[in-house]
């Protein structure tokens, strides 16, 4: 089976400043279906640029990118939008939910833009509800983002990314704004989804978070310097249990002291 993402020697040069910035300098990469990849690197390493190109938000200056066999370079603005809508799911760093819009309506949003689909409002609602169930937030469907915790907001964002059954789920520092416990919670959701066969690519700069993935890519100065499968992979359920025990112990100690 062909890889879902095929990148061949792509470059990205930003010409906007006085000096052209060569952000990505020749990355070649295949991602198979069902993979769970962490893109790592210091700031300025080009990982966000690579992510934007993977997400079809930006075009490479040079090189080819085949997403599910489609050459992205040949598509116009609207065709790219359709591709993002149907083949990709996005989870942004800052959640990027619409404010003053309920969780359910936020999840419905990508389906409202589905170009080739004639889906009834009932079905849209049903599918959005189903995705909220997957991330465990079905009970809070009518809450507004400001009534939800960071982890819950991120889970709404994940549900939104899932709702059009994408080929690849892209997450840009999904745990960047979260505390460690909530991060483990979100990684748990990702691992569950990956177990169901969904391909996930995420950017992170936290090593321990990267250990929940199956494959780690390290970027430096716009090139991949390391590409290896994860040894000693962390399992979210197990880690969660450890955290809970630690918490309980902490409380116990505090309780004993008091």
């Amino acid at each position, binding site marked *: 089976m062909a890889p879902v993402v095929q990148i061949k020697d792509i470059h990205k040069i930003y010409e906007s400043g006085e000096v052209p910035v060569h952000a990505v300098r020749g990355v070649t990469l295949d991602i198979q279906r069902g993979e769970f990849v962490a893109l790592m690197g210091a700031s300025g390493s080009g990982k966000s640029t690579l992510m*934007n190109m993977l*997400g079809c*938000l*930006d075009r490479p200056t040079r090189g080819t990118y085949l997403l599910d066999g489609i050459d992205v370079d040949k598509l116009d*603005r*609207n065709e790219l*939008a*359709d591709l*993002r*809508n*149907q083949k990709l799911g*996005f989870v*942004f760093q800052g959640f*990027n939910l*619409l*404010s*003053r*819009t309920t969780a359910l*309506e936020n999840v419905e*949003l*990508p389906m*409202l*833009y*589905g*170009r080739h689909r*004639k889906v009834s*409002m009932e079905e849209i609602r049903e599918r959005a509800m189903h995705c909220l169930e997957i991330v465990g937030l079905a009970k809070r469907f009518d809450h507004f983002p400001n009534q939800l915790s960071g982890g819950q907001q991120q889970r709404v964002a994940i549900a*939104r990314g899932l709702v*059009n059954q994408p080929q690849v789920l892209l997450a840009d520092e999904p745990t960047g704004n979260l505390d460690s416990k909530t991060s483990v919670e979100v990684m748990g959701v990702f691992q569950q989804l990956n177990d169901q066969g969904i391909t996930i690519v995420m950017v992170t700069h936290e090593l321990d978070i990267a250990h929940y993935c199956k494959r780690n890519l390290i970027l430096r100065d716009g090139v991949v310097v390391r590409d290896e499968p994860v040894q000693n992979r962390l399992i979210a359920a197990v880690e969660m249990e450890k955290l809970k025990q630690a918490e309980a112990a902490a409380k116990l100690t505090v309780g004993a002291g008091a």
Partner: protein
Amino acid sequence: MRFSNTLRVALRALRRNTMRSLLTALGMIIGVAAVITMVSIGNGAKVQVEAQVASLGQNLITVMPGSFSSGGMRGGFGSSVTLTPEDAEAIAAEVSDIDGLSAEVRDRNQVLANGLNWNTNVNGVGPDYPYVRNWPIASGAMFTEQDVKSLAKVAVIGKTVAEQLFPNEDPIGQTIRIRNLPFRIVGLLTTKGFSVFGSDEDDVVLIPYSSHMRRVSRRTSISMIRIQAASPEKIDSVKLNVEDLLTQRRRGREPDFTVRTQEELATAATQANKTMTGLLAGIAGVSLIVGGIGIMNIMLVSVTERTREIGIRLAIGAHGGDVLTQFLIEAILLSSLGGLVGVGVGIGGSQLLSSYNGWPVVVPTTWIFISVAGSAFVGIISGFYPAYKAAQLDPIDALRYE
């Protein structure tokens, strides 16, 4: 993307910012309310003038004798003595679409009654006269066709004459003397007030035109014929038919009569009013434009404020066109809903003004449509630029926008 979805998205966006939406619509509400109120006042004034013109009689056509000329001396309109009661009878018999017709002979005479006397207009008319002049009888009755044929000595008097000659009694059944002939009063006209030209219309005695011509003035010609056409649309055809018939009756002689319609009089009267209504509508139109600019401002601010939202929408698959449509729909919804509310406020406001000031106010239905359509149009115009700007945003830049 289906249109219903865009509509849903736009409605959600408006609902999310109820306060902002209301404030934006307020500009439109004020604009449209101003249009409706101003035009209603202007229209009310117009209707009032039209009512005054209509008090002369409805759908009126008048036939006057032409000018008399003899040996190089030319008389004015009405100086010719060739219009006869037979002309009137012929018109009544042969021209269709006529509701009423009355020959008229005018004169001024000293009238005596009750030991009092009074100089007044003594007019010979036909039995249709009160109907044609839109001037009902207050008490008693109008004399009949039979009275005209028998040269009866009967009279119907106006209010002023009644007051002068019968200050404290009911004039019906009393006798007045005109040129020493006794006329029995059979009817009293309602008060008509002053004419457009300033004379007292109620200072009049009406007698059968036949009696007038044979017994009082001894004339052979009549002063005018008043004809009421069946409907406003028939006025022109009746006028033409009357002209044809009279020309025919003249058997090739110079036409010695003039046929005029009431519209010619009404035109002049309504002209001034049209100018007034136009002025008011102009002022109101300016306020509509100001409302539109208000919407454009809010929409522009809204695009900047909602850059991130637009970025999210574009990133998850909205086309530029979808964003454009959404913002356009928002602008149009705001302005046309504002327009509708404005119509309500405008109608309410003009009614209030009417009951407070006693001004006649008539809300014109066409202007309701014009202003609602106009406000939707202003919405499109003022919404397009911000919407276009939103649609052109780059998703990455929009997402990064703080």
